[in-house]
């Protein structure tokens, strides 16, 4: 029971770490925005600065309360887990490093929440001191603090990395809010220009410190693709690349176009930047749940092992197998070659017939799902060409996914298994699957209406891209175990690219809806391609 407690708290800790990093970044970005970017100067005039400042302070207070709440919950969860599993009292927990650091972050965040008010004119420098204290304490709960070698330099590098991340990614929501609130073009232009200069410096610091940390924590090319840590860092770097690309577009727009031409596009691009930026931070939280790759001396997967798992192979799409229940007689479900050739896991352990049947069933489910997603993407691409009106009905394939979930999610229950529909209706797992199928049908109907009746200006049209992006972010935010590190990594190698593609699909669809009509061309092509690639990835998904 106690051991299970640590497992459950493990995942919760990743979520809390993610929340902490997001709010901490908002705090850093917000303080800099209030103290420097949105501060009126003689050059910019007075403009709408007072309004932008007041609302920025409000958002800053929300971020501070969010960070304090995350820290309080983190302290409670970590202390409870430690007290329960190590059988020690609260008095013993209080002296632990994490408790001291977490308490400092908590108190600093609360103080920011109190001081961040337009009525406290002299509070500015205190805000800066408090967020610096909060960041310093927060860094003491990441990898750098526990290293045996190079601890001091890694702590400094981590501090700079998180500081630059906060200034840039954490400042983006404040910039977006500033652009939305200010009706005055010179004010918009001024804060955007200032933010752009800051972003440029921040990107440089993030890249340099990121490379420095990678050299210390990953250490070799093989560890970059052969460990979960290396793969997640690569995923983070790829998404950072997408973010830098968007930032680069903004930068070029600011340099080359007039304010009236830039601002309508810029706001939409910043919206996508905020979304992808938060996903990068969530991925960073996932990275912190793993031991650095450099420490996994005997658990790095080789290039040959990776290739043998990801090399293109014909998918399992047998209709007969699809209609069978694997639990009644697992051997019946196995492909003929598995009976003659012994199958083993990555570490050479022979797989039992039941385990093998489970794997085959899982692969079959993934492959059929992949086929449906691939078709969705292909039809969306076809519709985009404007030469096949009927392809606009691609959301109907979501109904196919719903049917698939109902039929295949539980092969012991209706319609494949012996247990009836009503008997399994209140079982949480089956209820969850059926609700998920209903959500799919809902999406199908709604997305079809968006396409056929041109509801793209309706706010609800943004639900589908948001769900795609959220799904991708969830795939990139999970904790990791050490019971079978190599299998974990191989599973990750298939899931992480799909997570990244889902995030890109979501935000490119978002941009297609939100950008001015003449700028929608490129994003309108990106998301269907992402769907095709996700489908192809699922079709090639394998567990052995």
């Amino acid at each position, binding site marked *: 029971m106690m*051991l299970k407690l*640590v*497992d459950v*708290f*493990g*995942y919760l*800790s990743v979520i809390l770490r993610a929340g902490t990093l997001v709010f901490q970044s908002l705090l850093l970005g917000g303080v800099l925005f209030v103290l420097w970017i949105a501060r009126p100067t003689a050059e910019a005039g007075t403009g709408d600065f007072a309004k932008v400042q007041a609302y920025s302070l409000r958002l800053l207070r929300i971020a501070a309360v969010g960070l304090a709440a995350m820290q309080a919950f983190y302290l409670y969860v*970590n202390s409870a*887990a*430690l007290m329960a*599993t*190590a*059988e020690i009292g609260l008095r*013993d*927990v209080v*002296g*632990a*490093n*994490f408790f001291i650091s*977490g308490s400092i972050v908590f108190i600093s965040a609360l103080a920011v929440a109190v001081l961040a008010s337009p009525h406290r004119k002299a509070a500015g420098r205190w805000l800066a001191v408090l967020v610096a204290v909060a960041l310093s304490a927060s860094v003491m*709960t990441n*990898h*750098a*603090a*526990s*290293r*045996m070698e190079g601890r001091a330099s890694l702590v400094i590098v981590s501090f700079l990395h998180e500081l630059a991340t906060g200034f840039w990614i954490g400042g983006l929501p404040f910039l977006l809010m500033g652009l939305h609130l200010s009706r005055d073009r010179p004010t918009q232009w001024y804060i955007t220009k200032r933010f752009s200069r800051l972003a440029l410096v921040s990107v440089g610091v993030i890249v340099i410190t990121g490379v420095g940390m990678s050299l210390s924590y990953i250490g070799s090319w093989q560890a970059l693709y052969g460990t979960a840590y290396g793969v997640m860092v690569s995923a983070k770097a790829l998404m950072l690349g997408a973010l830098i690309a968007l930032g680069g577009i903004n930068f070029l727009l600011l340099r080359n176009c007039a304010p009236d031409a830039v601002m309508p596009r810029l706001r939409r691009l910043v919206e996508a930047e905020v979304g992808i930026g938060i996903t990068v931070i969530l991925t960073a939280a996932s990275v912190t*749940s*793993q*031991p*650095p790759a450099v*420490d*996994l*001396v005997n658990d790095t997967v080789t290039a040959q092992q990776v290739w043998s798992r990801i090399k293109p192979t014909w998918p399992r799409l047998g209709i007969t197998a699809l209609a069978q229940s694997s639990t009644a007689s697992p051997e019946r479900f196995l492909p003929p070659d598995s009976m003659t050739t012994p199958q083993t896991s990555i570490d050479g352990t022979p797989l039992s017939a039941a385990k093998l049947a489970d794997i085959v069933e*899982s692969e079959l*489910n*993934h492959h059929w*799902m992949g086929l449906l997603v691939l078709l969705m993407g292909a039809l969306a691409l076809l519709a985009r060409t404007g030469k096949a009106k009927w392809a606009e009905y691609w959301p109907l394939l979501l109904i196919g*996914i719903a049917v698939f*979930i109902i039929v295949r999610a539980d092969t012991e229950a209706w319609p494949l298994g012996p247990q009836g529909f009503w008997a399994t209706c209140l079982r949480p797992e089956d209820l969850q699957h059926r609700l*998920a199928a209903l959500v*799919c049908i809902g999406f199908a109907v709604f997305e079809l209406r968006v396409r056929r009746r041109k509801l793209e200006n309706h706010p609800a049209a943004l639900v589908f891209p948001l769900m795609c992006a*959220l*799904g991708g972010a*969830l*795939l990139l935010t*999970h*904790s*990791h*175990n*050490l*019971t079978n590190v190599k299998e*974990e990594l191989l*599973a*990750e190698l298939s*899931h992480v690219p*799909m997570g990244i593609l*889902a995030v890109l699909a979501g935000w490119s669809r978002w941009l297609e809806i939100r950008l001015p009509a003449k700028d929608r061309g490129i994003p309108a092509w990106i998301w269907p391609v992402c769907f095709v690639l*996700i489908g192809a990835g699922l079709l090639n998904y394998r*567990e052995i």
Partner: protein
Amino acid sequence: MLTLLLLAGLSQVAWAHAILMESKPALHSSVKGPEVAIWLRFNVRVDGGRSRLHLVGPNGAQQTLPLAKQTSPDILESQAGGIKPGAYTLQWQVLASDGHISRGEVAFTVI
């Protein structure tokens, strides 16, 4: 939806940070009793005051081992006395300096 299905494949979650780099007794080794010295080296600094070692004997009985004062931030040491021949499992749980809790096992035989 797709995410939920994919995440189901990653359902074995755990908190994993500290790795046991080296141990005495080593994994699947044989040592002489009845006095067995325990020595564990991790990849990170661990908080000895908030870490625990348990020894599970051949009959399933579990005893908590007292930890000696740390000689290095990455090392835990203990001494098990009165150990009879048989298969044993050393269960460790450590609190890393960064606040992560990790745990693991070392199986060995006393001859």
